[in-house]
């Protein structure tokens, strides 16, 4: 049984199909890449998996249970964390506080525990460890909205890790980063997979996708046009067709 299974997923906005009967699955501890030209429906797919949007039709199963009727916070609690392509940190919070927000469902489950302090030493310690993972330990006191884009992207990952997820959805984590940062972030993603986190990655940079992912799903105008290993996808004529004008990056 697949770890995450998406079946016949369809989403319509005002009669337009953003996603059209998309199927794919991810095995545990694997990295799946999702690629496709702009407007292919990649982010819509993430929004549906994370519960922000409801699918028009279709089903999502996570560890054998149907999740497409759950609310975003329930999906987060089930162990699915995500980042946003257009970063949305809690702007007026410090970096450390951003990470602490993700601890709620584990440490403050009930009404009465909600009244406890959120700045407990053990939690702060754990949050600092997570920040160290993404290389941001020196920024813990900075106000999130003042950070440069690259650090905001890393903060998004740190905030997602605070949920202690078993599935991580990364929406273009490399976009807007300097070239030198790519390798470091790729290393981090591999490390997370080693620890047992399953990862689904939307990415525009083909080099990164080809290097990182075991399998790749290609979307175009909401339809899955190819799926397979990086090598298979690279040589698929339909994929090359979809990327006409962008062939240089594919080849």
């Amino acid at each position, binding site marked *: 049984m697949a770890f995450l299974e998406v079946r016949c997923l369809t989403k319509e906005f005002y009669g337009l199909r953003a996603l059209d009967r998309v199927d794919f699955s991810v095995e545990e501890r694997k990295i799946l890449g999702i690629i496709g030209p702009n407007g292919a429906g990649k982010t819509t797919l993430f929004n549906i998996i994370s519960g922000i949007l409801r699918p028009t039709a279709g089903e999502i199963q996570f560890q054998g249970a149907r999740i497409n009727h759950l609310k975003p*916070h329930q*999906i987060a609690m089930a162990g699915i964390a995500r980042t946003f392509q257009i970063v949305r940190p*809690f702007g*007026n*919070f410090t970096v450390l506080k951003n990470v*602490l927000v993700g601890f*709620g469902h584990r440490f403050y489950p009930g009404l009465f525990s*909600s009244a406890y302090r959120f700045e407990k030493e053990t939690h702060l310690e754990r949050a600092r460890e997570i920040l160290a993972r993404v290389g941001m330990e020196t920024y813990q006191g900075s106000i999130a909205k003042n950070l440069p884009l690259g650090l905001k992207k890393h903060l998004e990952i740190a905030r997602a890790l605070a949920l202690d997820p078993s599935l991580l959805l990364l929406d273009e984590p490399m976009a807007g980063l300097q070239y030198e940062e790519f390798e470091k972030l790729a290393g981090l993603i591999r490390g997370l997979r080693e620890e047992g986190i399953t990862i689904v990655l939307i990415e525009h940079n083909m080099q990164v996708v080809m290097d990182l992912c075991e399998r790749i799903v290609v979307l175009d105008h909401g339809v899955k046009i190819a799926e397979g290993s990086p090598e298979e996808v690279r040589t698929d004529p339909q994929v090359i067709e979809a990327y006409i004008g962008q062939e240089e990056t594919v080849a």
Partner: protein
Amino acid sequence: MFGGYIITVAVTIGIYIILAMSLNIITGYAGQISLGHAAFWGIGAYCSALLSTRLGLPFWIGLPMTIAITALTGSLLAIPCLRVREDFLAITTIGINFVVQAVFLYVPFFGGAMGIGGIRSPFSTSSFFWITLIFVLVCIVLDRWLVTSWIGLALESIREDETAAAISGIDVVRFKVAAFAIGSGLTGLAGHLYAHFMTFISADDFGFPQSIVILSMIVFGGIGTLRGAILGAIILGVAPEIFRPVLDYRTLIYGGLLIFMMRFQPGGILGDQSVLPKLFRMVRQRSPALVRSG
């Protein structure tokens, strides 16, 4: 120890402080713009007045009941607010204010246009001052506890970004209801004090203009900060007394002040990004350095 006039103004300001703090929880911390806060205040005051005049309940027994009932009604009235966001929410809360006021005015049970009179207060005016002061202090402690608690963090994260909060595992609906419940519970306290201090209340006291005054207090002082809520309540509580000699221009000055503040210091007097707190932080950062170098 003070004159009756001073005490009356002081008690009124104390009640304003509690009101401003309670709205600050809903709007300042949780980010849910409420333009109908006077409705919750009115619910508290009417509840307190009815418990006192119809059931003859004493002050200290009526108090927890009023707070509980107002918190409950507040969270019930929050339900329509949960379905809508931002500007829809702001206008829905105006609507709630008008509807609640209309109920007080037109349902005979609430005394109609005559309001409710004859609420008996067990205290003298000066002891009322001390009791109000103690309640204000209790509320300040509660507020400090709230902002350091997990609820406080959850509310603020909802204010910053509702979607990001949700995908971080925060049950947005539950915490919004919590914000309205805590906030309206405090307005229940303010209503109880107001009813017993005034001994007479009517629907006019809790109209939409009052909601604007309460909102202006926290915006003036610096939204989302306790110090701002307190300062704003004091300024807008004292201002009508100071401007009494120019009675005819008082409302004009109030309106002009709102425009002026928003135009030149939109974060409020004591808001985190405003001039005064920045100066204060600068001075505080510099002084230890001076000590060390000297």
